[in-house]
């Protein structure tokens, strides 16, 4: 160790022994050598001129720029090298330096290069004097600063573009506000006209003849049409300016559809169209902005009626999938031409066939529908064939509130939400309750009383100063559910609370000699598609946690995992792809083909560790069009496939595989549902 230090010090000493160095390089030949080294290796142009402007010495770079050797340049002037105009400018600067004796420092000029491209140079010129102070010439350095200048220009350009963009955004905002204000102002006179006409029609100001009434009815219909346009304009301007806000509430989806069905059935009947509803038997509760989703449904059904001929059929169907609810509005109408399909959701769309027959409105309806569905966390797509019919589908995310939430709870939640009170709902659910009850040696009623006591006690301990009271909102002895509602607390607090409850319930069951009780705590999560703001809004007002007691998980968890998958397309074509996620109920993958909704396809899934790939049939549950990102990339679709008629053996393999890739699922915080 000591030795090492010593050598280090001696090294430093020898390095700082500059006196020796100075002596060594005192020799003028060294100085010359250094200077010429600098001259010939520096990337800047260096030159010395006499009073006549003739080069007396130039460096390598200068000569190279002219395609010459340094010695070839001696005695030449700038007039020999550059175009007349440029040479004159250089001479002017030279004369200035030599006459005044003042240097020119960092003068930036642009010049045309030998190859015709522009460059930027910075020039510094310094007068040279003899021993008596008489100016005998000058020395100049010119540096190419094209890159620096270009960078600065780019920066300026960027700033300019940003400013432009800002102005554009401002303009766009102004446009939206203008549209909004105008549409708004149009409503009042329209209301007056309508009311006047209605007074006449209703005969309040005196009897009118049938023919007169007929004409007034036509006027009234057109007021309604104008009003629709104003509504659409208002909607789109609100959507564009980001002013539209979703008001989520818990909705029984079947009820929502049935509410408007009477109206639409009547409308369809007038055109002799058979409008049928195909709804799932089970109740389904979802979190949506009911008014807005109603608007979407109304738009799609109205369109279907408009573009379906007499004796046609329209079917409204709802299908429930693992994470989504899918609504389909399927008609046997005139259809949409293939070339029109991609632009159908665009604003102010003018279609070649569909809207020519009956061009009403301004083509905003579908683009509004798309925005509203997406704002609600769903997707919308269309399939159509000219002369055969059109299928519009849209999805809405499911939050696993089906069955779990009774009307009672929903009312309570909505009540609180309406008052802008954020709530937390913890739902205790005993999975496989029938089985569970058999193993239970206590009365279900007693069990629930006990559970309630456990929760209340936990809550009391958990609540330090000033915590709001706890509301047990549901006790379903028969169904095995217990719902607790309280005003919103912080996320981590809620998780903590849930964990505490879970532990205590577990203890309670072990105490009661009921073993193998599996308690799962899940947090409802939201599709990634959900807009950040929407999610915040949603999360700001309601949170749901579920605690499940039981021996198995009821819903499938989707686990992001890549496995090779082959899908057999019509015409025996095989497309290879990879899964995005997998669950016991199905897979999600990307494909280049647009498959039809509900199409059944053959697939091959290559699970690792399995020798043979699994073959099974699957159904296309939902489709999401992914916009082309790369230039070469063709269209892409994200497909949700649902397994159908899985063989028991395959089911076991898949479930085993899923267990193997989901280490956290059986632990407390595994995501319960997506």
């Amino acid at each position, binding site marked *: 160790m000591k030795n090492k230090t010593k050598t280090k010090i001696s090294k430093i000493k020898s390095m700082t022994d500059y006196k020796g160095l100075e002596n060594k390089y005192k020799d003028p030949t060294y100085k010359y050598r250094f200077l010429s080294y600098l001259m010939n290796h520096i990337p800047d142009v260096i030159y010395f001129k006499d009073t006549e402007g003739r080069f007396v010495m130039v460096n390598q770079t200068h000569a190279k720029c002219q395609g010459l050797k340094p010695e070839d340049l001696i005695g030449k002037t700038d007039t020999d090298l550059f175009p007349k105009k440029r040479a004159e400018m250089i001479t002017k600067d030279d004369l200035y330096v030599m006459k005044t004796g003042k240097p020119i420092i960092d003068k930036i000029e642009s010049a045309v290069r030998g190859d015709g491209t522009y460059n930027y140079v910075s020039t510094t010129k310094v007068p040279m004097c003899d021993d008596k102070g008489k100016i005998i010439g000058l020395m100049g350095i010119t540096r190419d600063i094209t890159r620096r200048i270009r960078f600065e220009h780019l920066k300026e350009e960027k700033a300019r573009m940003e400013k432009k963009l800002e102005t554009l955004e401002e303009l766009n905002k102004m446009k939206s506000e203008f549209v909004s204000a105008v549409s708004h102002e149009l409503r*009042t006179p329209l*209301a007056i006209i309508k009311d*006047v006409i209605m007074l006449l029609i209703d005969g309040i*100001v005196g009897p009118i003849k049938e023919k007169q009434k007929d004409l007034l009815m036509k006027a009234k219909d057109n007021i309604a049409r104008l009003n629709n346009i104003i509504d659409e304009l208002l909607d789109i301007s609100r959507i564009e300016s980001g*002013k539209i*806000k979703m008001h989520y509430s818990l909705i029984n989806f079947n009820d929502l559809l049935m509410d408007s069905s009477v109206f639409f059935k009547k409308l369809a009947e007038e055109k002799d169209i058979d409008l049928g509803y195909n709804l799932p038997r089970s109740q389904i509760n979802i979190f949506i902005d009911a008014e807005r989703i109603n608007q979407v449904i109304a738009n799609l059904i109205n369109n279907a009626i408009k573009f379906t001929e007499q004796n046609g059929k329209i079917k409204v169907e709802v299908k429930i999938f693992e994470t989504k609810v899918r609504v389909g509005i399927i008609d046997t109408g005139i259809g949409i031409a293939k070339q029109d399909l991609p632009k159908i959701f665009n604003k102010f769309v003018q279609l070649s066939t569909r809207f020519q027959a009956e061009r009403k409105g301004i083509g905003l309806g579908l683009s509004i529908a798309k925005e509203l569905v997406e704002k609600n966390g769903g997707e919308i797509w269309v399939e159509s064939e000219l002369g055969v019919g059109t299928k519009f589908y849209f999805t809405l995310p499911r939050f696993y509130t089906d069955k779990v939430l009774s009307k009672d709870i929903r009312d309570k939640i909505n009540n609180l939400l309406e008052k802008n009170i954020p709530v937390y709902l913890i739902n205790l659910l005993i999975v496989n309750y029938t089985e569970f009850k058999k193993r239970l040696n206590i009365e279900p009623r007693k069990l629930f009383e006990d559970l309630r006591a456990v929760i209340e006690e936990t809550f009391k301990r958990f609540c330090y100063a000033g915590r709001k009271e706890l509301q047990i909102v549901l006790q379903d002895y028969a169904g095995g559910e217990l719902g607790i509602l309280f005003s919103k607390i912080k996320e981590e607090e809620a998780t903590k609370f849930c964990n505490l409850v879970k532990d205590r319930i577990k203890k309670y069951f072990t105490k009661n000699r009921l073993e193998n009780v599996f308690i799962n705590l899940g947090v409802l999560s939201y599709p990634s598609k959900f807009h950040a703001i929407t999610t915040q809004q949603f999360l700001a007002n309601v949170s749901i946690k579920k605690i499940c007691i039981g021996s198995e998980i009821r819903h499938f968890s989707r686990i992001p995992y890549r496995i090779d998958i082959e899908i057999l397309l019509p015409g025996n074509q095989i497309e290879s792809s990879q899964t995005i996620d997998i669950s016991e109920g199905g897979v999600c993958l990307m494909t280049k083909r647009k498959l039809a909704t509900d199409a059944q396809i053959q697939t091959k899934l290559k699970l690792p560790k399995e020798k043979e790939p699994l073959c099974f049939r699957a159904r296309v549950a939902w489709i999401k069009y992914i916009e082309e990102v790369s230039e070469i990339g063709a269209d892409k679709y994200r497909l949700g496939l649902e397994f159908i008629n899985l063989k028991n053996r395959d089911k076991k393999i898949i479930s085993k595989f899923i267990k193997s890739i989901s280490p956290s699922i059986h632990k407390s915080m595994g995501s319960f549902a997506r």
Partner: protein
Amino acid sequence: MNKKKILLVEDEKVLMETVTLRLEANGYEVISAYDGFKGLEKAKKEKPDLIILDLMLPKMDGYKVCGLLKADTRYNKIPIIMFTARAQESDKKMGKEMGADAYITKPFEPQALLEKISELLRNEK
């Protein structure tokens, strides 16, 4: 049976005329006010059975009139229908916060207005 008295506060003269005609044809007595201030005054003096209140009013807007009436125990039982060209959620919310009992958007279906009126008057009993 006494005729029910409805106070209509609306600054659009034509709309005032048409709505008045319709209400009278349906057996109501209508008193009118063209601005918020007059509306408030008449509401207090005449004690109508129901008030139809436009939002955008000169002198005092509908929210304010509604809020003042609903804050006063002498008048807060009078049902108020907010009547406006606005249809934005935030407006509806504000109207409700001010204690409005119903909300009708212009252009309106006359039938819907009449139904709302009779519904609110029924509740009144």
